[in-house]
């Protein structure tokens, strides 16, 4: 690994200036960047650490919603009681990344911008309707999380752009979310499939809104709008679940690789989606934390 000039500016403007240099990389927790650099897969000319920039760190209320600094370590999410109460699915996804030690460093911004199709927090964020605040030479823009990944290891960020914050809306009344993944091991593993589900149930248990997003079954984390639509207006009866599963099956394009076959991924996508919806619904009904 050739030594990368490292800098840790304490304001966004300076960070943007440094990040604009050709070959520069933003550094959050480094749990992907440093490993890929050591392995020779990346050779950044410079590393710009975001962790001294106030906006990139910490969890702040925004009305009834939340702003999460893009470089905030995942451990901090679990420690924020209000966030855990509002978006348990997002927090459980972030709490699955790596191990305790990895989560003390790893961030949501890094998980998103590393653009692995198997990133755990991304389907949960997408299901929750999270947005990313993108800062760049031309100013700031706010985009849905699903608009960031472009393919394995690629994002839609323009050169010099970075994600400074992630924003979560207020938890809607009657809302609940969940994230489930399958890995052969219990931890320190990469999702074979991950499913995030967020839904809203009215007083009668009828679903009024639903978002289903999947990881590791397509080149990017995938929002399957038709899957959510299949649930809306139903009480999540068998038929509705079957329609959701059909929509998922039609939308995903899993591949065979050494972690799993496409056929297995397809099968598991359905199993986990069914379970994630049940878990999100139980949370929506207040039956489960």
């Amino acid at each position, binding site marked *: *690994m*050739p030594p990368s000039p490292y800098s840790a500016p304490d304001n966004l403007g300076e960070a943007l200036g440094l990040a604009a240099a050709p070959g520069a990389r933003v550094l959050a927790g480094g749990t992907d960047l440093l490993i890929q650099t050591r392995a020779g897969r990346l050779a950044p000319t410079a590393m710009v650490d975001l962790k001294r920039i106030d906006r990139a760190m910490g969890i702040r209320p925004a009305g009834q919603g939340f702003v999460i600094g893009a470089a905030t370590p995942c451990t901090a999410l679990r420690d924020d009681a209000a966030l855990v109460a509002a978006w348990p699915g997002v927090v459980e996804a972030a709490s699955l990344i790596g191990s305790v030690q990895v989560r003390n460093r790893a961030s949501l911004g890094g998980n998103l911008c590393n653009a692995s199709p198997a990133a755990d927090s991304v389907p949960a964020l997408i299901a929750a309707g999270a947005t990313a605040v993108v800062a760049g030479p031309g100013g700031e823009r706010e985009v849905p999380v699903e608009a960031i990944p472009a393919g394995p290891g690629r994002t839609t960020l323009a050169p010099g752009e970075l994600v400074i914050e992630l924003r979560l809306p207020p938890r809607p009344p009657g809302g609940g979310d969940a994230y489930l993944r*399958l890995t*052969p*091991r*219990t*931890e*320190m*593993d*990469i999702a*074979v499939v991950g499913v995030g589900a967020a839904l809203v149930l009215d007083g009668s248990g009828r679903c009024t809104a639903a978002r289903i997003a999947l990881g590791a079954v397509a080149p990017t984390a995938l929002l399957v709008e038709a899957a959510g639509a299949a649930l809306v207006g139903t009480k999540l009866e068998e038929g509705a679940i079957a329609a959701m599963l059909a929509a998922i099956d039609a939308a995903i394009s899993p591949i065979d*690789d*050494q*972690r*799993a*076959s496409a*056929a*297995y991924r397809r*099968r*598991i996508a359905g*199993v986990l989606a069914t379970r994630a919806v049940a878990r999100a619904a139980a949370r929506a009904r207040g039956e489960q934390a």
Partner: protein
Amino acid sequence: MNPPEQSFRVVGTRPVRPDGADKVTGRALYGTDFALAGMLHGAVLRSPHAHARIRGIDASRALALPGVKAVVTGADFPEAASVAIAGESAANLRDIARNVMARDKALYEGHAVAAVAATSPAIARAALALIAVDYEVLPHATSIAAAIAPDAPLLHDDLFTPGLKPRPETPSNLALHVAIDTGDAAAALAGAAAVAGGHYTTQPVHQGYIEPHACVAQWNADGQAQIWASSQGAFMIRSLVAGALGLKQADIRVTPLEIGGGFGGKTTVYLEPVALQLARQAGRPVRLEMSRSEVFRATGPAPGAVIDIRLGADKDGMLVGAEMTFHYTAGAFPGAAAHPAALLALAGYKVPNRKITGWEVVCNLPSSAAYRAPGAPQVAFAVESCLDELALQLGIDPIELRLKNAVGPGDTGPMGLPHGQIGLIECLEAARAHPHYSAPLAPGETRGVAAGGWANYGGPSTAAVALAEDGSVLVTTGSPDIGGSRAAMAMMAAETLGVPYETVRVTIADTASIGFSFLTGGSRTTFATGHAVIAAANQVIATARARAAQIWGVAADTVAWRDGAAHGTAGDSAGKVLTLAEIAGKAANAGGPISAEVGVNPAGWLPGFGVHICDCALDAETGQVKVTRYTAIQDVGRAIHPAYVEGQLQGGAAQGIGWALNEAYVYGADGRMENPGFLDYRVPVASDLPMIDTVLVDKPNPDHPYGVKGVGETPIVPPLAAVANAVSRAAGRRQRHLPMSPEQVLLGGDA
């Protein structure tokens, strides 16, 4: 002859291990911690192809890079003689030499083809990229099926299957044939009331030690070579390096460094001869170390296996016949433990008619290496699975079925000799009586049991015991400590001498400072090196008694030794006492310092047997298996340090569970390994395992002063089938293919 009940002061207690504090504080010197002034950093260029002829290597651009001090290729190594090397799996010196550096052909992805030494690791790596290798890529075979197919690419054109009579006329990839044929297995199976069988497969698995291979080599000004390395045997390194490079053993001094796990995988050399050649060319010391990816691609693994088996019993569950054919992947060079596999496959049971045929198959995988009980787990997986099937078919409790057939003392062993004081029956009885075996299962949980054993070994060992002037005791051995053996040696010395454990220190010496010891492997060290330590301690006692006699002016045989002191019995000396410390303090001026060095090659080691009980919960929708409770029961002879023996059982069980559930080498169609790292080569993590309970069954070995039997390898033999038997019962389908990954359990066909 059973020894009289012995009582012990030190043996059987649980003192703190002498190497512990340095290890937990990071002070212990492992392979990469050792450095010399002026040391260069080496790097190895490895073949990207699974099979390729090396037409030429141009290193001129690498040599021209500033900071590069040496480049070596196969041409810089002498052609080693074809000499068989004893070890845990048979090997040949010529093959070892070709494995450390390819000559005309690269035989697997990761095979070393050149190496560089430079002033920094970065320069060394940059230099690798400047070496141009002209490869003629050849067709490859990474599986048994591909390697034994009629049109298979041939790895070695001079390999005519040993063990086949008559000698085949054409070379092939079949590297060894072994056969055992007693009675009439076919007829016995035809008449059996129940027959279980099938086609079983296991994948190559790595030993998974935490510490990658590393060494430092230098040439002294007088032409003597020095090597510092972490391994399972400094003497093993000395003899293999001498053989590979054509050096005199006395001209090589190997200093063992602390070892961060080996499990059999560090019973051969990979880097040492290369580092020495680089150091010779550069005129400076050179360190070579592997990355994790190099460890996976170029060292280990244990052989993968394809096994076809039929096992038959009469209606009462008495085994009547067995037929078994197995193929093991040797990797690039012959040697895959087919011999022990054939001998041990049915070693636990009385099966009157048996026909066992084993083959080793060379293929384009890293050359396989010993791994805990080499050869035994794969065949045990098939045999113990069949026993489970028979138990189900016949409606007999699986432990009961094994008890009906288990071998005991006096029964014929695998070598045709009667067994000594083995403890399989006691283990099965302990398993049946264990609360785990009768504990109710939670809904959705199932239980599997399996037994297994290992032959164990003795072998040559040397130990020295010396007294310091203050009476503290220095024990020196040549046996690297991979499982707490320093504690065991100190305890046996303390027990023999009658002094406190705390006064004994153990050093693992370099090859110039102690006589020869065979490597640490075969579960032999506490047994054989322990014998040497006890013998040396007894000689020290004899000398100490003589000195006391001299001081008291009486005959030595009137001086008794107990509780760490000489006791006079004759004449004036009666009632007089001289402690070991007092004698040591006077020794320099009363006959000279006291020490003894003893070399032994003890017979009388005994096989070890174990029985494991595994509960698991299967997620029927995903195929995911969770091991919920696990108990490992083993006849350990007598545990010198029970905590470290329990640790051996737990470690073996953990590795066996990994082998059963998720570990496997994965190769692409291009012959390249796709998972050379711990992220995708899935050893179990802590949260994957329950607490592994252990039961130490004590059936002392009458041929060891303290009853020791080898314990380190047996515990990896039962788990594959223990887990598979539990999962098979949960899935309602016999699990014949490892690893039982979630996908395999849910969708895996039964080919």
